């Protein structure tokens, strides 16, 4: 087995569904200065990208939107996988590696995981806010291990995953697709000749949904409450259910990934979340 194969197998054995390798040179063609892997790890040559399905398939079928977040699984283990990978590379191959990157400043990440995933061949950008979609898994969640080890990169996919052929057909008839229809506040765009012609993503509006109960929401709530002259209203703002849910989310670290509506009815994502039929019992329970 090649070294690249060993590294990928290591990630898969620890819980990643897919592992791809991107070269820092490829990433740096697109990432702006200050947001490149070698800004984070001096001398970085490769980024190993681990992907998993974000949550249980059942979470998507729960009427309580907060179940999205509370059923996240890959998010809970991804840091452990990439950290194990980093230690594996350092101990087995003698190259520097790290598995966590500096935190974002506001909405600006220190490193685009989407770009890393794209350059590692794990998927391509979708009409749904540029979310990376994978042909097999659909909606994926990503984690990275940055290393100084030169590795053979997988490189980006040759063919775009999005749009699905059913979306192309629908666009021709109705000039819309499921993601655009679901979230017109955040998403806009057009298809042409079966491909994405252009798209626009309002990440600021979007962020109020996946980060609904978050430090950002709490900061704004605090500002509004501090400016509220009516003490009864102020009490309601601070002690009410939204405030309490927000504080609880912050205390438990459950502050991201609280929305996935734009990809709920995406045909690529729906295929990815099909249960394995050989394990499903029929309605009579036999």
């Amino acid at each position, binding site marked *: 087995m090649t070294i690249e194969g060993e590294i990928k197998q290591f990630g898969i054995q620890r819980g990643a569904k897919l592992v791809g390798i991107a070269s820092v040179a490829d990433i740096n063609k697109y990432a702006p200065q200050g947001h490149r892997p070698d800004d984070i790890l001096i001398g970085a040559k490769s980024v190993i990208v681990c992907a998993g399905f974000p949550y249980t398939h059942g979470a998507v079928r729960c009427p309580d939107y907060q179940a999205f977040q509370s059923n996240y699984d890959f998010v809970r283990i991804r840091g452990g996988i990439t950290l194990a990978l980093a230690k594996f590379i350092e101990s087995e191959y003698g190259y520097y590696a790290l598995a966590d990157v500096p935190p974002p400043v*506001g909405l600006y990440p220190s490193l685009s995981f989407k770009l890393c995933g794209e350059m590692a061949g794990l998927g391509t950008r979708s009409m749904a806010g540029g979310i990376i979609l994978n042909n097999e898994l659909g909606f994926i969640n990503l984690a990275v291990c940055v290393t100084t080890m030169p590795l053979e990169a997988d490189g980006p996919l040759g063919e775009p995953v999005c749009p699905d052929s059913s979306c192309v057909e629908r666009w021709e008839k109705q000039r819309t697709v499921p993601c655009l229809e679901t979230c017109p506040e955040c998403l806009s765009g057009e298809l042409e000749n079966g491909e994405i012609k252009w798209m626009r993503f309002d990440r600021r509006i979007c962020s109020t*949904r996946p980060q609904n109960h978050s430090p950002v929401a709490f900061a704004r709530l605090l500002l509004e409450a501090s400016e509220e002259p009516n003490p009864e209203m102020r009490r309601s703002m601070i002690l009410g259910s939204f405030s309490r849910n927000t504080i609880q989310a912050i205390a438990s670290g459950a502050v991201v990934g609280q929305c996935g509506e734009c990809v709920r009815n995406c045909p690529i994502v729906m295929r990815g979340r099909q249960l394995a039929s050989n394990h499903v019992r029929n309605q009579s329970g036999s």
Partner: protein
Amino acid sequence: MFQYVSPELYEKYKQKVLEMSPAIQCYEGTKLMREHSCLTDEEIADRLCLDVDQVTEIRCIAEIDLLPADTWLKSAEWKRQKARRILGTEGTQ
């Protein structure tokens, strides 16, 4: 280095900084366009002749401040409605 920005500076640049930041992402095909938006704080600072720290602070405040105060509450209700709708459209396995 962290610094507070003056109200005057914030009011003057908040909209511009936000529009130039990654808050709005425009793609041609699947290629992210970075001529006018999705710029780094360093790039915005260069274009507006500001310090990088000033841009960072203006951007961080504007990302939250320029949305209506009830946006997060409305988002919760929006998601509640969307999630509940699946009971009528997807049924049970």
